């Protein structure tokens, strides 16, 4: 599947931005994943063409980074952290609940194709809100079973982030008071609000 015009434009813009074209490899891989949901060999070949670099270099770089998917997964990605700070606050129990609730094992996709979930040992940077998970790279903190249920219910029908008009920019977050959904400060701030009054 050839890359969309818009993605190609993004790749070319990145190449022009950096002092070295090679620095545009990660932005290009992100652009491809935004469009197609994962990164194929074919797409890496296209990136190589647009950047004027050998395809082997693109794959050498891509394969180092854990966030680039190489095969299609569920429409939504749910990742729960089980590193020590989260473990201390019940992440194992929450991961077990997610497994029961979705009926598929760690790393698998629900039969309806809506959710791929996995646990990770890589800290996601929300230890203060543990147990926590990321849904399509958006933070969901202080998880309870009810909260998890509500999130899964929403994801069953929500389109994948890359299918939205604005890639990765909306999906999981409800718009705040009719404003454009943005998370910078609003979406992920409950921890901040709690502190430093």
């Amino acid at each position, binding site marked *: 599947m050839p890359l969309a015009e818009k993605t190609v434009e993004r790749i070319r813009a990145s190449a022009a*931005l*950096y*002092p*070295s074209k*090679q*620095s*545009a490899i*990660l*932005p290009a*891989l*992100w652009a491809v994943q935004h469009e197609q949901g994962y990164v194929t060999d074919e797409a890496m070949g296209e990136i190589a063409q647009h950047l004027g670099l050998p395809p082997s*270099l693109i794959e*050498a*770089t891509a*394969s*180092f*980074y*854990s*966030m*680039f998917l190489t095969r299609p997964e569920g429409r939504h990605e749910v990742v729960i952290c*089980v*590193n*020590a*700070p989260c*473990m*201390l*606050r019940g992440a*194992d129990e929450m991961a077990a609940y997610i497994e029961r609730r979705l009926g598929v094992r760690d790393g698998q996709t629900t039969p309806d194709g809506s959710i791929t979930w996995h*646990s*990770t*040992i*890589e*800290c*996601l*940077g*929300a*230890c*203060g*809100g*543990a147990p926590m998970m*990321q849904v399509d*790279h*958006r*933070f969901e903190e202080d998880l309870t079973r009810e909260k998890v249920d509500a999130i899964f219910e929403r994801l069953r029908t929500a389109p994948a982030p890359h299918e939205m008009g604005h890639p*990765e*920019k909306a999906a999981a977050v409800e718009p705040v008071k009719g404003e454009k959904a*943005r*998370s*910078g*400060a609003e*979406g*992920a*701030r409950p*921890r*901040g*609000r*709690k*502190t*430093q*009054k």
Partner: protein
Amino acid sequence: MALKQILTRDFGTENLHQLQVYERKGGYTGFKKALEMQPDELVELVKKSGLRGRGGAGFPTGNKWSFLPKGMYPRYLVCNADESEPGCFKDRYLIETSPHQVLEGVMIAAYAIGANLAFIYIRGEYLPQYEALENAIDEARQAGYLGKNLLGKGYELEVILHRGAGAYICGEETALLTSLEGYRGEPRLKPPFPAIKGLYGKPTVVNNVETVSNLPHIVLNGADWFAAIGTPTGKGTRVWCISGHVNKPGNYEVENGTPIRELIEVHGGGVWKNRKLKAFQPGGASMMVLLPEHLDVALDFDAIAKAGSMAGAGAMVVMDDTTCMVDAARRYVKFFQHESCGKCTPCREGTFWMANVFDTFENGTARETDIDLLLDIGYNIDGRSFCPLGDASTWFPRSVIKYFRDEFQEHVSEKGCPFKKQPVEAVA
């Protein structure tokens, strides 16, 4: 001592992430003042302030800047926003609440070292924070804070926001630069240090998010003002992330020198569920465990080092008396195994074998001799790895064996974890 808010002073303000609000709170006056000064004066100012890097190593920021070779251009400023240390979430808080403060700090640092191009390398998982910075950069550019001939002073600056893609190692400064250049994020040999040969082989300074966030305040209020806060060798404040078994986990900015007890018992709300404190870790996953007897140690690089641990990235992980220390150490070791880049053998193989041995303690097949086997593997990684990732993978487990050896022995004699009723599956 109470909270001392410098970086987080205005964090209760609604919409602080917006340029107008940030400016109303005095934002960008530090940058304006900086542009009135000569770059060398700024370097001297920051040297005199005593600011030390907040990324973990605590290296004096002004000194780092002054290592750049004279007359070699271009040179680059890189802001390290690849925060990935387990237990640490302060950079995320600083970015999402006040992205302009980070950006203003980056701009001041770039001007001070004479860079016309700066980069912010943010970890891939921080998508909302990436967007917050993206918006901030757009707003700043439209307002004339980025671009050519800034504020009529003839200085030109652009900032490129670069998104990582899931690699803890890229928080190590040379690995970060390699990654920014588009390669696999593997660390490089030092020397040459980035100040001499950094990004694209040019002189480069890498500063942490919290470090640069201090700069607007130091420029505005002066070196003496900053140097009067904190301890003789640890000036200013730090934003401490407190997590684990406390009532009020979160980020708290306190003056350096504040006792650990205050952070845990007052700001963190004390140990939860009326349980007793068993242990805590003052610097995130990498750092050695400390005990309740260390509660009166000061939150300060040197004081914590003297107590046998490290302040690291400012992440306080608190563990109550129900915690299985063996399992906590196992998680961290698995983390380092997962994040080892594979470049050097001691780290790649050592973390793998440590993780395997740790699993035997949890699944009940460990032997008494495996405790010393862990120490032996750790000994052969620490100081023999290419970069600090390997070294750091051994510090917490070895300190846990030192203080809680009996727990390892119980795992052996009870053929499994005495803290859990059911057998534990391997994680991740």
